[in-house]
């Protein structure tokens, strides 16, 4: 027998170094691919999976080599891995909605192949391929990403690469078995590797924007132009379209130009008109008035809207547009805003405080309202602190970041959550640029918000379950501002008050009453924007509340606001946008806010501080953002979701579970049955194959009985041991052992003189298939 000389591939150290090299390359590629899309935890988990696969693969290939496995089989595995990497992409795109550009698909297929090659490094050629491939991986990764972690990985790869080269050379010298031509190849390899490393160093560290130099013109699908490739990544050709980017302002547009661009973009008023139809007329016969006490009336009349504040009132009476008007080219269907961060999110733009029965009016900002902004630095970036008095709703409230990007909303009001704390726009460190639009709404001292500029908003989202004043009487907590509880003097109001009182009659607690009103609206009123109350006979709110029980969100919110005011709680109507989690785009990690997302809701004051307002969402289908869930809460939520799903599909779940358990318990019987049937129906023509399939069936039955043949015991020895346990005579077993030995070890040349008779073999196999079953012994 030819015993192979010890070669470099057999050196375990070299094998492990090769695996380490490929894992380093794979990690670099993962980091380059993640580029802010995925968290460090995701990268770490990914790396651990790859390391585990490499480790298990190494064990498998080592045992395969020991078992005299062929390289053809390894090649098949490599081919399968590469194809699987390619096949995975369409699955990912169809079922998960995300994907990678063409060059990354190829790179990941190559990476997976190199990973398997590294695992199969007990064969010399795979080890060498994998070692060189790892350098290719790291070069590719370094050309698309140049963070500090990449430099560390490149350094590590460099060290490992040199070690691999020198060690393999040293080993070659030590064993002194390689022929002269291989030594020449080694010299070439050293030269080529040095060139590759120098090239890598030049590309990785000499250029400020390596991707442009390295890939421009080479990778056609690279770049942010999604029109060319839906899954293209940012890099080349950016500028026209919005791309994902939360922190680097330069990835969007130059700030100098952005705030001053004039356009025909819609204002909030346009969007409301478009979404809720145009304002309608109300019969003059219908009474409508603002229910204020006499001493307050003078002030309110003075503050009623004038021409300058045209968009600061909202009418609940609307009229249907004609079909032509609806289909006219108007506002672009593109998103008005892009929101990055947790959703659902209520972005406030306008609050309405006074209601006359038909119209809601905003309370103008008092002239003496203090402009309270200050500047502070966080991570060397300027942050504008919004110094309106902090809420006292819950004890602990974490800061949470949302990034809003104005795509084409024409407004200078900053769409922001209720408890806004800080604002950061890169390079903007002037507090005089900010002002109050209303008491709790910030505006920019410009005509409109800058376009395509990420605006970082840090806010609080108090947990409604943890509100600390839940047992207090809100009315007594602070001096009430009259207009927040004012009701119009209409015949409708007593009806509303009566209904509200009936709803909360059994409740003592203010917070519970508020929730009851909110819940009542969510349960009893259907949200339907297509219903428009433009009639001249009745107030829209009355028709909505007591007749249709369905309507647009502004009527639902108005109804809730009036009910809450009738119970004595300070309430205001709020309009703005609702960033719906249903619109979340997994690819860009943004939630687009469309014109249709304009929304009305209610805020109620539930604490003593001026900022203790709480969002109440009376419209069904909309949700209020709570604090982020902890890992425990997420686990519980996931568990409940699974339990709920299983509960809904109980029969199916039980059937599936039962089937799985049965399949597991009776797995050997099922396989035995199938194999026996298969052997009875399809008898291999090749005698040797018949013998091996019979042996396989016998060993399968043995495994079922826990009598698996030890790998160091010969078949004859094992069958002698098992003879007493089997319901078949010993002679037949000896015969089978003889045939198996012949089939496995007799060369073809020996067949001519010593081939057992095919009939005998067939007969013996038949007896084994039918009768060779283990006798169960009593314990």
């Amino acid at each position, binding site marked *: *027998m030819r015993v192979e000389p010890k070669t470099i591939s057999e050196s375990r150290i070299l094998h492990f170094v090769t695996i380490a090299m490929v894992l380093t390359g794979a990690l670099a590629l993962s980091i380059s691919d993640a580029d802010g899309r995925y968290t460090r935890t995701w990268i770490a988990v990914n790396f651990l999976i790859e390391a585990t696969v490499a480790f298990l693969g190494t064990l498998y290939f080592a045992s395969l080599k020991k078992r*005299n496995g062929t390289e053809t089989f390894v090649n098949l595995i490599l081919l399968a891995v590469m194809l699987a990497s390619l096949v995975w992409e369409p699955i990912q795109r169809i079922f998960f909605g995300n994907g990678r550009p063409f060059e990354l698909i190829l790179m990941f297929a190559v990476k997976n192949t190199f990973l398997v090659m590294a695992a199969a490094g007990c064969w010399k050629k795979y080890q060498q391929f994998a070692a060189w491939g790892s350098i290719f991986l790291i070069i590719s990764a370094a050309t698309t990403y140049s963070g500090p972690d990449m430099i560390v990985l490149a350094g590590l790869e460099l060290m490992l690469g040199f070690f691999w080269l020198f060690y393999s050379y040293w080993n070659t010298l030590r064993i002194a078995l390689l022929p002269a031509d291989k030594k020449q190849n080694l010299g070439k390899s050293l030269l080529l590797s040095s060139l590759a490393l120098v090239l890598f160093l030049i590309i990785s560290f000499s250029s400020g924007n390596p991707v442009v130099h390295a890939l421009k013109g080479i990778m056609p699908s690279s770049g942010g132009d999604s029109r060319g490739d839906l899954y293209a990544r940012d890099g080349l050709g950016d500028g026209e379209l919005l791309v994902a980017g939360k922190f680097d302002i330069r990835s969007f547009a130059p700030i100098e130009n952005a705030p001053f661009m004039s356009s025909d973009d819609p204002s909030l008023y346009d969007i409301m008109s478009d979404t809720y139809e145009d304002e309608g007329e109300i019969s003059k016969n219908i009474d409508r008035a603002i229910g204020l006490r006499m001493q307050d009336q003078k002030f309110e009349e003075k503050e009623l809207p004038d021409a300058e504040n045209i968009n600061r009132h909202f009418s609940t009476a609307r009229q249907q547009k004609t079909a032509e008007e609806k289909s006219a080219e108007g506002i672009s269907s593109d998103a008005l805003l892009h929101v990055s961060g947790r959703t659902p999110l209520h972005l406030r733009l306008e609050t309405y405080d006074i209601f006359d029965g038909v119209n809601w009016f905003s309370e103008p900002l008092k002239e003496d309202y203090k402009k309270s902004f200050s500047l502070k630095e966080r991570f060397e970036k300027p942050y504008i602190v919004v110094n309106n008095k902090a809420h006292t709703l819950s004890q602990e409230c974490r800061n949470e970041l949302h990034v809003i990007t104005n795509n084409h909303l024409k407004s200078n009001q900053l769409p922001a959550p209720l408890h806004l704390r800080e604002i950061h726009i890169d390079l903007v460190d002037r507090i005089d640029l900010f002002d109050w639009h209303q008491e709790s709404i910030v505006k920019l001292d410009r005509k409109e918000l800058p376009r395509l500029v990420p605006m970082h908003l840090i806010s609080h989202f108090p947990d409604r379950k943890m509100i600390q004043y839940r047992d207090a009487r809100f009315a007594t907590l602070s001096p009430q501002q009259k207009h927040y509880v004012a009701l119009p003097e209409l015949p409708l109001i007593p009806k509303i008050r009566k209904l509200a009182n009936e709803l909360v009659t059994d409740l003592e607690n203010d917070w519970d009453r508020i929730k009851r009103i909110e819940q009542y609206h969510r349960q009893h009123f259907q949200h339907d924007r297509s219903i428009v109350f433009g009639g001249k006979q009745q107030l829209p709110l009355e028709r909505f509340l007591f007749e249709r029980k369905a309507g647009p969100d502004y009527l639902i919110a108005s109804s809730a606001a009036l009910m809450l005011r009738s119970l004595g709680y300070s309430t205001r109507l709020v309009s703005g946008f609702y960033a719906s989690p249903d619109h979340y785009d997994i690819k860009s990690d943004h939630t687009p806010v469309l014109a249709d997302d304009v929304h009305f809701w209610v805020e109620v004051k539930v604490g003593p501080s001026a900022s203790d307002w709480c969002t109440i969402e009376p419209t069904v289908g909309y949700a209020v953002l709570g604090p982020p869930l902890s890992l425990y809460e997420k686990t519980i939520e996931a568990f409940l979701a699974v339990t709920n799903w299983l509960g809904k599909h109980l029969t199916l779940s039980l059937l599936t579970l039962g089937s799985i358990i049965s399949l597991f318990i009776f797995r050997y019987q099922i396989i035995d049955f199938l194999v026996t049937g298969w052997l009875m129906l399809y008898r291999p023509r090749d005698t*040797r194959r018949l013998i*091996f399939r019979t042996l396989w069936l016998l060993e399968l039955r043995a495994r079922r009985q826990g009598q698996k043949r030890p790998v160091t015991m010969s078949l*004859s020895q094992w069958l002698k041991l098992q003879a007493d346990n089997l319901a078949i005579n010993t002679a037949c077993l000896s015969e089978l052992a003889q045939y198996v030995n012949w089939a*496995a070890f007799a*060369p073809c*040349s*020996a067949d001519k003189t*010593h081939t057992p008779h095919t009939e005998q073999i067939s007969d013996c196999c038949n007896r084994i298939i039918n009768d060779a079953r283990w006798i169960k012994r009593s314990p």
Partner: protein
Amino acid sequence: MSTLIENDTKMDLQQEYSRIEQLSDCLNQVLKGKSEVIDNVIICLLSRGHLLLEDHPGLGKTMLAKTLAALIGGRFARVQCTPDLLPSDITGFNIFNQKTHEFEFREGPVFSDIMLADEINRATPRTQSAMLEAMAERQVTVDAVRYQLSQDYFVIATQNPIDQHGTYPLPEAQLDRFAMKLTIGYPEEIDEIRMLAAAIDQDSDAVTEREPVFNEKELLETQQKIAAIPVAESVQRYLVQIGNATRKHPHLALGLSPRGLLTWQRVAQAHAFLNQRNYVIPDDLLETALAVLSVRLGIDQSENRVLIDEILQSVKLPDYALPSSN
């Protein structure tokens, strides 16, 4: 070599099997109840190896050797090894003939077909070494002249495990020349009764004076046929793996040498032939492992079986699967 098997007729092989069966029967009559030992002796003979018998006196070692010599129709020689035995007493020497005034070579006991070296460990290492060339190459060199020995030259050496005073343990180089080390052991009670019964009114020389089963040519042909039995690569790989396991074993100073592997392969071929198979299977290696490994692992006899079992348990058997060449 495989053509030898292919061209052979089944009838020819039947003749071979029949002769081996006769040989086995005759030896079983001499050494009752020791069929396993006899099988190993025959395997050793057929594989052209040499045999080391380690056992107490009076267990039938000499009788076995003499009977075997008679059955293969060869010359038998016996050397009683003592510390004063000289190499020339074994190989032969040149003596000056006064009449012809020339040196004449007088052949030693190595010029026989079966040589029994009794109590070989009593001879000095110098004398023991004199047998190295004869055992390995079937030739001796005396005074720079090379003499060819019989092609059937077969050494059966014995050594006594109890009486270790005044003995010289065999060096590893010499041990490696033996194919097997066997112990005969005391017979069972029933076998001893049979032996006693058979000895009544029987000449002690009668058992050793039997008609030969083989002639010189036939034995050589059989040995050549055995050497041509093919061994699958998976079995050879298994053999090498066992060899590696002996070399790496912490309790063994010396593992199996490549010559040891070659010898074991030949022994396995002979074992296969004895079982009327013309291919080698892993069981051939397993069943001859104790006899083959005992002689060359340099360990105490009492530890042999445990240690060899441990080594065999550490190596996975070849898969029972279609040969890759198919």
